[in-house]
């Protein structure tokens, strides 16, 4: 009987350590521990060009991450990019005239949405729209414009 009892203990230990391993992967390694996208509210912004923005790209304000992009779609009537963002529930005091712009982290880093709070007393609600947006800066376009400008100045 003694033998089976140690065996039981070891099997129990094995299963417990396996579950601890899974738990470690979930909480420490993946994004599950730091941010959950469920308890938040959704706001929408329309951009002329959303550049390299992807689903799950961060949404930040004043440099602090406050949410994630949840969906990006193309509006076939206005030819704009419709970006849905899920904002964490604790940041629920964004004013209605908040500005959204697509920025790049560093020169070659990933793109993110930056929200800049306005001065209105009305607050953005779940499903609200951001009216003032600024498109992503496309590097090729900027270089092209610069070259074109410097060429025309030489004449």
């Amino acid at each position, binding site marked *: 009987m003694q033998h089976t009892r140690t065996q039981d203990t070891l099997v129990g230990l*094995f299963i417990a350590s*396996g579950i601890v*391993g*899974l738990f470690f*992967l979930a909480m420490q*390694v993946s994004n599950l521990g730091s941010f959950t996208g469920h308890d938040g509210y959704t706001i929408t912004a329309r951009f002329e060009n959303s550049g390299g923005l992807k689903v799950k790209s961060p949404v930040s304000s004043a440099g602090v991450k406050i949410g994630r992009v949840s969906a990006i779609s193309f509006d076939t009537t206005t030819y704009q990019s419709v970006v849905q963002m899920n904002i964490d529930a604790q940041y629920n005091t964004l004013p209605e005239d908040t500005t959204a712009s697509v920025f790049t982290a560093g020169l070659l880093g990933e793109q993110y949405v930056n929200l800049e709070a306005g001065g209105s007393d009305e607050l953005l609600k779940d499903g609200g729209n951001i009216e003032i947006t600024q498109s992503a800066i496309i590097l090729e376009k900027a270089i092209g414009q610069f070259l074109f400008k410097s060429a025309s100045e030489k004449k």
Partner: protein
Amino acid sequence: MIEFLQHLGENTRTSFTKLGRGTFFLLQTLSGILSVLTRPRLLLKQMYSVGVLSFLIITISGLFVGMVLGLQGYYILSDFGAEETLGVMVAASLVRELGPVVAALLFAGRAGSALTAEIGLMKATEQLSGMEMMAVDPIKRIITPRFLAGFLSMPLLAALFSAVGIIGGQMVGSGLLGVDEGAYWAQMQTKLDFQDDIINGVIKSIVFGFVASWIALFEGYDAIPTSEGVSRATTRTVVNSAFSILGLDFILTALMFGDN
């Protein structure tokens, strides 16, 4: 020419009949699950020999694989000044690929070969037919508990492998080479998704556990009951498991990570 065609036909026929026997064997095994669940002691004993005894080799290999990833990743990433993303590299490659695959290969080598040899020897010494004589179903009594044990142990072992590997990478990366510890974990947490990375890795390891235990048990049950037959069956277990695991890994990766 005729001889070659005849040979080809015969090979095809034998491999198809083997596949058929294997499927039939799997169905019989699965139908025994309920009766095993009413006698958990059988399962517990097999969990010990399949899972607990594989624990050490899995964790030690995981530690070393993670440490090597940390070293190699650091050398390459530091060329681009991107040492901070070492955590992402180590964790993503372990959780998505190396964890499930290497753990499954080790599992096939450590536990799978032992299962085949055990069952094959039981068959060679006519223990299985002896059980049938006593009206004990050898599939329900012998095979299904071992199958369930392998199937349940594999995801746990793969998760342990990845977890220990990530800690090993951190030990080398920030302990030896000077990557910032906070950046190692923080970058990992922002880049790895629970659903896309962790869950898909677990699904992979479940599939590999299923396939590796099935192959090991079937090869043992199907072995020619001589000492040579058992030794051949053991070899086949390791070879076939490795092939199936690596092949399935490619298919699963293409299905899971193909669209992003």
